[in-house]
């Protein structure tokens, strides 16, 4: 017969308040696997329950906005790679369009299509990374391996297109670094074809997984009102039922031509955010296939903007006028009118915005980067309180942030 243990004293003493309790202070990060970078959470714990959570940022602050004020518009393109370094191509595009809006410059259809294709590929690769890391946070290693295999294929394609796997610096103001190589779009198409069944396989590892569901369903619920009040954007806001997707609401770079759906969650818990990201990848594949099917010809840079986009390289070395044009562009930067512009693009992590104040010339007077990760993290002090420490790991994984972008 099994012995039954009971502690009659404990309950009585607890009710009478005879036990001395004190809150514990715990620091999570800045170097912690689940903080995805260098975020530090200063937590106050009552047992295992958080009573206070104070995120400490700035470990990756490089002063990008200050740097932008001191260089020409094209020189800043490599710095945009290092904002959300899991989707550099999407950042490149957002920045280029923001400056082009300032110059009231419209790039040709082929350039727009290439940018949209690269941005959607960046979205898939970013979500794959987010999904893989989320899997590890909740104890599922296999997902990470599957995701990285697929991500590697995308990086091969990025390398072929831009010459770099990670820090692509692909766009220029008024165009691109170069045209797509021959047969590249067909290879992207082939990637899409083989990716969809594998994506289903990846999602099947998690969607009905008992352990994963226990860790995510009803954990970290963000109400729709909270998502709006804290300025959440991207999959985190859409998981809570906010329907904003700028590709749909205010199309840029030719997104109005493509048919796609915007997945929206109902409850706003970690599981909903996971589902939204999974579906978004499928929609990105849809966009990619359409963009490749109607891939336009013609010039891949703005040919009518001599003070903004440089001449073809082969002409620089053979023709005087092009040499002068190239020289002026490199030394003085793309010439912009005075004024101010605010442009936002729907990036994988949320809405990335650039606010540029120009006094004319080739250097911005002030540039503000509205980074989605910064705004998405600002809800943490409210979201984490009342949860278990282990749930914080799930919540951080589901928010899918990048500190390079948060700290700038």
């Amino acid at each position, binding site marked *: 017969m099994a012995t039954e243990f009971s502690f009659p004293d404990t309950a009585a003493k607890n009710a009478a308040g005879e036990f001395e309790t004190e809150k514990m202070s715990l620091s999570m990060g800045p170097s912690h696997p689940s903080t995805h970078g260098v975020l530090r959470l200063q937590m106050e714990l009552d047992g295992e329950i958080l009573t206070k959570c104070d995120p400490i940022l700035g470990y990756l602050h490089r002063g990008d906005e200050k740097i932008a004020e001191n260089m020409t518009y094209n020189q800043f393109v490599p710095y945009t790679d290092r904002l959300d370094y899991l989707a550099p191509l999407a950042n490149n595009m957002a920045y280029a369009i923001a400056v082009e809006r300032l110059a009231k410059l419209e790039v040709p259809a082929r350039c727009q299509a290439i940018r949209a294709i690269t941005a959607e590929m960046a979205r898939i690769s970013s979500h794959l990374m987010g999904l893989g890391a989320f899997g590890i946070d909740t104890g599922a290693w296999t997902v990470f391996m599957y995701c990285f295999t697929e991500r590697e294929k995308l990086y091969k394609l990025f390398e072929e297109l831009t010459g770099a796997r990670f820090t692509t610096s692909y766009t220029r103001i008024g165009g691109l670094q170069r045209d797509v190589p021959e047969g590249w779009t067909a290879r992207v198409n082939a990637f899409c074809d083989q990716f969809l069944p594998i994506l289903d396989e990846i999602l099947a590892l998690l969607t009905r997984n008992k352990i994963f569901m226990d860790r995510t369903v009803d954990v970290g619920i963000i109400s729709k009102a909270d998502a709006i009040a804290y300025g959440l954007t991207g999959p985190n806001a859409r998981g809570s039922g906010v329907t904003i997707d700028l590709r749909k609401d205010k199309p840029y770079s030719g997104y109005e031509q493509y048919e796609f759906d915007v997945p929206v969650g109902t409850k706003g818990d970690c599981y909903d955010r996971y589902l939204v990201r999974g579906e978004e990848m499928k929609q990105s594949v849809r966009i990619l296939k359409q963009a490749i099917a109607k891939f336009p010809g013609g010039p891949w840079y703005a040919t009518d903007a001599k003070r903004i986009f440089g001449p073809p390289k082969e002409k620089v070395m053979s023709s005087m006028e092009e040499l002068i044009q190239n020289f002026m562009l490199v030394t003085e930067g793309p010439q912009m009118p005075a004024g*101010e512009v605010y442009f936002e693009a729907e990036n994988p992590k949320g809405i990335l915005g650039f606010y540029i104040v120009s006094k004319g010339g080739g250097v911005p007077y002030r540039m503000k980067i509205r980074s989605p990760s910064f705004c998405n993290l600002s809800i943490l002090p409210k979201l984490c309180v009342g949860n278990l420490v282990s749930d914080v790991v799930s919540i951080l994984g589901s928010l899918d942030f990048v500190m390079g972008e948060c700290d700038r």
Partner: protein
Amino acid sequence: MSEVLTALKAKFPQATDRPSSDHPAVNVPIGELVAVLGHLRDTGYDLLMDMTAIDWAEGASPRFTVVYHVMRSTKGGDYVRVAANCASATDPVVPSVVSLWPGADWHERECYDMFGIKFEGHPDLRRILMWDGYPYFPLRKEFPLAGIETPLPDAEITAETGAKVIAAPMQGGPFVASPGEVNLTDAEPRAKDESWSDRRPQPGQEPLKQVKE
């Protein structure tokens, strides 16, 4: 002029048009800022997308301008830009909008951190990207790009190790050009090292001669 601005200016006669080429924009007196943004929030522009400041450099009047971008949460892409000038150049103060949007908390902390603008009514105004006790406001125009040498945040460690934050650590180092100094080849003797080159003379071989036309 857009409808939202017409309605706004009817309610707040002191608001004036702000020259803008992209979104409806309005300048408001700093005292009406919270009322104007509250009105916008209640009429559908309920997402505070971005909040920042501009420093118009020392001696300019007004010196600091705060700029807000608000958007509809029902349909993205419709922005309104609201700007207000700070009254004082030495001690800029702006009323906080944390009561309207809790998400403004971090934006205002960042703005304070970078520009030294104080937000009246902010529940917890302290630095966010730089450490507590950092003595400068880096995005002000007089702050140099290279930075300024400062002691590290932890006083005990600084006392023991003598370590400090060095401004622009690469300045004057190898392969870093700075105006008015020697050129890179002189600053960096390694640039002259040709031991890696296949044009250097091999043992037992005549040195290569410069061929002239």
